[in-house]
């Protein structure tokens, strides 16, 4: 079999973050090659090197017969590389057909785009991935899963020799997943090389021929899938036994802090959620991407206020119309999108940490530099934030440390309820267990914690109770120590076991 793609010793850093520390990888004709690794292991970065979105700092790429030190997106496309990005890279203002047209074989700049032709082609591709999306709709009006399907259609249509899929099933339903698997198998049969990223091991067993495991920006080995079982794979991924990763719970939870009853918000598609979180308790929240967990958190934090149901804090009904009101009620929310909503990268750590406590820290609006620095120093010490000082800009920190800064900001408000949304996303293994330790400590001190996570082992390991969401509703509340299959079954609906 011919080698389509070969990467040797690729390195890439973002400022202080070393995302890739020497990765080698190859892809053969007609194979599905899975990439596996924890959050932040560097999978997406590796892919962006292949598609030319990032130029590697070091290393060599060999595509077909060409040896290169870097690619541009246009060049990669010309070489027959297509990609479905984790974050859909679509143009929200353009229609579906136009989006697909733009991503197909790049036409000459002055060639005429036949709209009818474009539409026909789009329809055909959408049909192949089994999506019923009108091609004239603007992409901004599509839901997340629909956008993902459009991405897949784009990649399919480009007639590429190498197709890369970064967590394509993350937001798909059962039926669409089956269609996608069919598409992947078709591609393999026609000699295309597929790079396939997924956190779902069962998909990898069902689809992949070989698997390369990344850990902490390094490749720890390539194996034939049939030589591995699930346990071996996880061991490769994390480098140690999973069970020892999570700090144990201690003591009994206290009084109920948060209680929501039949909470609804039409705008964000959350329906009839009833849930309780008690002091000293960690409630883990599982679900597929797009299940509405972030939306629920945003309702509780007043970003998209609820339009039905009831929220009770320590037994008192409250109305939360804005983040400020939420903070005043003792609710804190560490958002999922750290770059956009969490840490302001240009501002010093100290300023980031003090942001939510301005009225308390700066009485009369007057800045008190010393008080602010002291506060920052306290958290830098308490949470072990690795930075040269409170004046270091947020952007100079690694992802895990940024996350700690984000958590610090909210701890400074001395909340009663802490909502963490994907607290360890993009955080390296070491920092991850440290964050877990911190969360557990906080719970021990009597905080009520609601922890949203897509990382199933994390939810299983950390939670005292597990709430599972699906399509905007609460699918189940399971006791701590439930097994992964039960949780997944709840997240996927009844037929969850039929994935493969």
């Amino acid at each position, binding site marked *: 079999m011919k080698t389509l793609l070969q990467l040797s010793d690729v390195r890439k850093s973002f400022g202080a973050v070393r995302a890739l520390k020497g990765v080698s990888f190859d892809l053969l004709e007609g194979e599905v090659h899975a990439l596996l690794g924890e959050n932040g292991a560097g999978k997406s970065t590796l892919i962006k090197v292949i598609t030319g979105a990032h130029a590697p700092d070091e290393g060599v790429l060999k595509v077909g017969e060409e040896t290169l030190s870097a690619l541009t997106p246009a060049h990669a496309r010309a070489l027959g590389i297509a990609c479905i990005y984790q974050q859909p890279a679509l143009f929200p203002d353009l229609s579906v057909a136009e989006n697909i047209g733009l991503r197909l074989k790049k036409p000459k700049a002055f060639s005429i785009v036949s709209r009818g032709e474009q539409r026909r082609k789009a329809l055909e591709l959408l049909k192949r991935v089994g999506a019923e999306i009108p091609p004239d709709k603007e992409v901004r009006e599509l839901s997340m899963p629909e956008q993902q399907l459009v991405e897949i259609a784009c990649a399919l249509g480009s007639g590429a020799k190498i197709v890369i899929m970064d967590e394509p099933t993350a937001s798909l339903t059962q039926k669409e997943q089956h269609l996608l698997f069919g598409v992947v198998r078709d591609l393999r049969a026609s000699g295309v090389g597929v790079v396939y990223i997924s956190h779902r091991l069962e998909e990898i067993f069902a689809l992949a021929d070989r698997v390369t495991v990344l850990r902490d920006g390094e490749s720890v080995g390539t194996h034939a899938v049939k030589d591995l079982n699930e346990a071996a794979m996880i061991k490769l991924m994390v480098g140690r036994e999973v069970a020892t990763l999570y700090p144990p719970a201690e003591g009994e939870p206290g009084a109920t802090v948060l209680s929501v009853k039949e909470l609804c918000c039409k705008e964000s598609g959350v329906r009839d959620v009833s849930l309780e979180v008690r002091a000293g308790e960690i409630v883990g929240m599982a679900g597929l991407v797009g299940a509405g967990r972030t939306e629920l958190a945003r309702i509780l934090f007043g*970003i998209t206020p609820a339009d039905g149901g009831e929220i009770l804090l320590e037994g008192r009904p409250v109305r939360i119309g804005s983040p400020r009101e939420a903070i005043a009620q003792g609710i804190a929310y560490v958002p999922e999108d750290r770059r956009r909503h969490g840490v*302001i990268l240009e501002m010093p750590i100290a300023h980031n940490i003090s942001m939510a406590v301005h009225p308390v820290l700066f009485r009369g609006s007057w800045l008190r530099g010393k008080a602010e620095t002291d506060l920052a120093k306290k958290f830098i010490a308490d949470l072990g934030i690795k930075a040269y*000082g409170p004046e270091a800009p947020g952007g100079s920190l690694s992802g895990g440390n940024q996350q700690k800064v984000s958590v610090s900001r909210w701890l400074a408000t001395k909340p009663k309820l802490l909502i963490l949304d994907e607290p360890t996303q993009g955080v390296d293994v070491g920092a991850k267990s440290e964050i877990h330790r911190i969360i557990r400590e906080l719970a021990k001190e009597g905080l009520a914690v609601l922890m949203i996570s897509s990382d199933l082992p994390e939810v299983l390991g950390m939670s005292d109770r597990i709430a599972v969401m699906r399509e905007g509703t609460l699918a189940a509340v399971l006791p701590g120590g439930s097994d992964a299959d039960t949780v997944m079954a709840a997240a996927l609906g009844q037929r969850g076991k039929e994935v493969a």
Partner: protein
Amino acid sequence: MPDAKPFSIKALLARHEVVLLLVIAIEVVIFSMLGRKFTDGSNVANIFRHSTEIGLLALAMTPVILTGGIDLSVGSMMGLCAVCFGMLVKDAALSPVVAGAISILIGAMGGGVNAFLIARLKLPPLIVTLGTFSLFRGLAEALTKGSRSYSGFPDSFLALGNSSVAGLPAQVWIFLLVAVGIYLLVHHTSFGRSFRAIGYSPEGSRYAGLPVGRNVSLAYVLAGAIAGLAAVIFVARLGEARANAGIGYELLAITAVVLGGTSIFGGSGSVIGTLLGYVVIAVLQNGLKRITSIEIFDRPISNISAELSGMLTGLLLIVALAVNPLARILATRRSRRQAILKP
């Protein structure tokens, strides 16, 4: 990891401010060598007397730009407030003090219109203030039927624009007061902190529970009020209130702010920078008028000072902006070349 040498934004800003100081020094040296009586006390007073309004608008614009916005309407607002002031004093026979206070209030209300559209309805500041740019000037013209002007103000009021107090033009004292106020607001209060945070990341600020709408509104209302104040000072200086007060001042104010190192995208910048940027422009405009002994284009420089200072300001702005990115591009080129040489 973050063991890198402490890299601080402050140091960088300081550098920009040092550069501006240097530019001012060069201007002063050149103009005192070539210009006539440039360093005379009365001329130095003129430099600041004539540019007080622009300086005020630049100060007003700084918080707005820090939040990532822009206010094109301040010049027109000056026209509207000047006309209102004139009407209040001459038609309604109010004392200049009361009329001045009302004019500032009107400015604040105009700023409130901007604030409502920008902070509440979340409309783009550029277009909103482009609209109010026309609207405010249009109202000023409509109120006066275009041609009415108001003059004959009491001398005690005109003194505000034309007399000196303790060696400085009277209005410069007001300017300094406002400058200190804005400096404290931007650098020493949580408002200033939130302006920056909003400029860097409006969404992030909202998630952090900052009162984004309120603070953005504050910036625009303040800008309107200061424009009202500038209008009163302007009328006191000219002794005449007309709908054409402050034409084109918004562009000069923005130029001063950007020249001062404030990012037009919001977030970073300083009031000291704005003040220095403003001084660079004010000195340039005045100094060129003083060079009568050198001719270019067959005309003495003093004859074409207005055109030259405009051109030089434009070029200075481009150079000031381009220096950093250019240096960065050259630096990466060099480092790449060295990497290749190094094996």
